């Protein structure tokens, strides 16, 4: 391929312009982040709690989207990763009295390990079989939380003490908001970097056409194992945040309805879109708060939103926004 190099150089010419756009984009993202750090100064306690919860679900849906949207695996183990992260956090802080950072890393590690475990059946089973076996895995864990009561206090639930790091104490929802914002921003940034690289591309390749992916040297097994571990650790981090936020966790928070919530966020936001995960989490966390006084309305809303997305916007809310070039997500550095 000697012919490539000169042509490649020619094609590189517009690079300075692309670089400038990128710099503007980064500056814009930084400005958004600064703006996002402001709400704790003027919102009331209730709104503050909802904002914290939104960040939890952004974390969770970013993690779930990696498996569901990018790797295309119909896996239902998300509530399991979420619960493991929450319980790992609660036990590390409350029972083992570990430092906060160690507890956080442990929660992510436990989630990553569980992701690895779940990826093994994903190597052999396809579509619905994988969905069902992962569903069973999640329910089995939930049964475990109930019955390992010497460790988890069973159905009564487990208290999660407030914690801090570097002299900062995350005892209020305001303090936690900043912590969560930093964690979410770092996760989004790292995940976007990975997705816009050969790692993200090989995931999508395995999703679209496993045989053709193997033909260009991508190991489908390795891609799936990587995706599940990566996803598992992010979702578990979300679980750890959830435990910190609520201060008490109990097994019924990690069942089928939690799983369906994650699923809906990812689908409504947009499969295979980080921006979609963020938007989905905002919409589906905020909307129920407006409807909470009327029983059943929240579920009806979720059903209607899902149907609307499936029938009219197959790429979710982010797919609609993706018509603007600036918001279109790519699997390479642009």
């Amino acid at each position, binding site marked *: 391929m000697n012919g490539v190099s000169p042509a490649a150089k020619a094609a590189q010419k517009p690079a300075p312009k692309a670089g400038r756009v990128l710099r503007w984009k980064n500056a814009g993202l930084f400005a958004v982040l600064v703006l996002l750090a402001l709400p704790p100064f003027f919102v009331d306690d209730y709104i503050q709690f909802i904002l914290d919860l939104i960040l939890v679900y952004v974390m969770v849906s970013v993690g779930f989207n990696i498996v*569901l949207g990018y790797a*295309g695996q*119909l896996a239902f183990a998300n509530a399991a990763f979420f619960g493991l992260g929450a319980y790992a956090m609660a036990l590390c802080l409350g029972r083992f009295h570990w430092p906060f950072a160690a507890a956080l890393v442990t929660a992510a590690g436990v989630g990553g390990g569980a992701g690895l475990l779940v990826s093994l*059946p994903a190597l*052999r*089973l*396809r*579509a*619905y*079989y994988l*969905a*069902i*076996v992962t*569903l*069973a*895995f999640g*329910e*089995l864990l939930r*049964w475990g939380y109930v*019955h390992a009561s010497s460790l988890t206090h069973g159905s009564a639930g487990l208290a999660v003490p407030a914690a801090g790091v570097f002299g900062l104490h995350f005892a209020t929802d305001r303090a936690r908001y900043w912590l969560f914002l930093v964690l979410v921003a770092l996760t989004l940034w790292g995940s976007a970097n990975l997705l816009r690289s050969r790692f993200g591309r090989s995931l999508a390749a395995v999703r679209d056409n496993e*045989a053709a992916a193997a033909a260009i040297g991508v190991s489908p097994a390795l891609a799936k194992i990587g995706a599940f571990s990566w996803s598992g650790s992010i979702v578990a981090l979300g679980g750890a945040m959830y435990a910190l936020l609520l201060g008490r966790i109990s097994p019924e928070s990690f*069942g*089928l*309805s939690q799983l*369906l919530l994650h*699923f*809906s966020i990812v*689908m409504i936001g947009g*499969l295979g879109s980080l921006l979609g995960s963020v938007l989905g989490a905002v919409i589906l966390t905020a909307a129920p708060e407006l409807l909470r006084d*009327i*029983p*059943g*309305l*929240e*579920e*009806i*809303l*979720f*059903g*209607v939103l*899902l*149907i609307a997305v*499936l*029938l009219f916007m*197959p790429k979710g809310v982010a797919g609609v926004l993706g018509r603007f070039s600036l918001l279109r997500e790519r699997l390479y550095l642009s």
Partner: protein
Amino acid sequence: MAAQLVLSGIGQGSIYALVALGMTILFRVTTIVNFAHGELFMAGAFVIYALLRWGVPYPLAMLGAIVFLFALGNAVERGLMRPLAGAPHISLAMMTVALSYLLRGAVRFVWGGNVRSLPPLFSFAPVEVSGVIIDAEDLVIILSAAALLAVFFVLMRYSQLGKYAQAVTDSARGAALVGINVPAFHCLMWGVAAVVAAVASILVAPETMLYPDMGARVLLRAFAAMTLGGFGSLAGAVVGGLLMGVIEQLAGGYVSTAMIDIASYIVIIAVLLLRPAGLFGRPEVVRV
């Protein structure tokens, strides 16, 4: 004790078999795994509840549930599933999840989240046969389920309906070529699957608690039954369901009552890891 446990296991298992059968009918013809099947079952129970509250006699209320669910199944196919023809698995699965949200939300909206119950259907005294206590309700459930299954198998094996179903299962395009109206057939099968769910709720509802989330439990049991029997096999769904009921009771009786809740999960995981085809299924062929 074993005989007693097996008997009540078969009673439970007939319900699982019915629910699994409804899901399998749909899966075979449309390749959709219906995550809302538990909610169809729940809806059937609440239709009976509502009709009884309005003073409709029991038999008519049951008929009402069947008619309502047949119509509901048809409507779901027409309104929600048909526009998604040819969509990937994730979208189809998600549409049934949306349906389950809608049904649960609607029931919660009307009746709230409280637990309700129906008046008992029969009040026979339990019969004791050589140390085994036979609950009349269990017996009725087992016999009704068996009758329904028999009717179903005769229909599938000997009628035109069965031939159509086989043709659509084998190849939707081929079936269309020989003149079968495939969308209409899918529609009919959604109706049939929903009716099977209604029958299950008719049999169980008088003996159980009614609440909006009651579907999840039977859904997972039905998954276990289908997995054990072999996904997509009608006979497998029935045998798997019965076995699942017996396994639960034996595990509960001999190990610990806590085992009843997780027997199905353990069965799912074990079967899919050791023998993904189940008892009656054909192993999946992976094509390049």
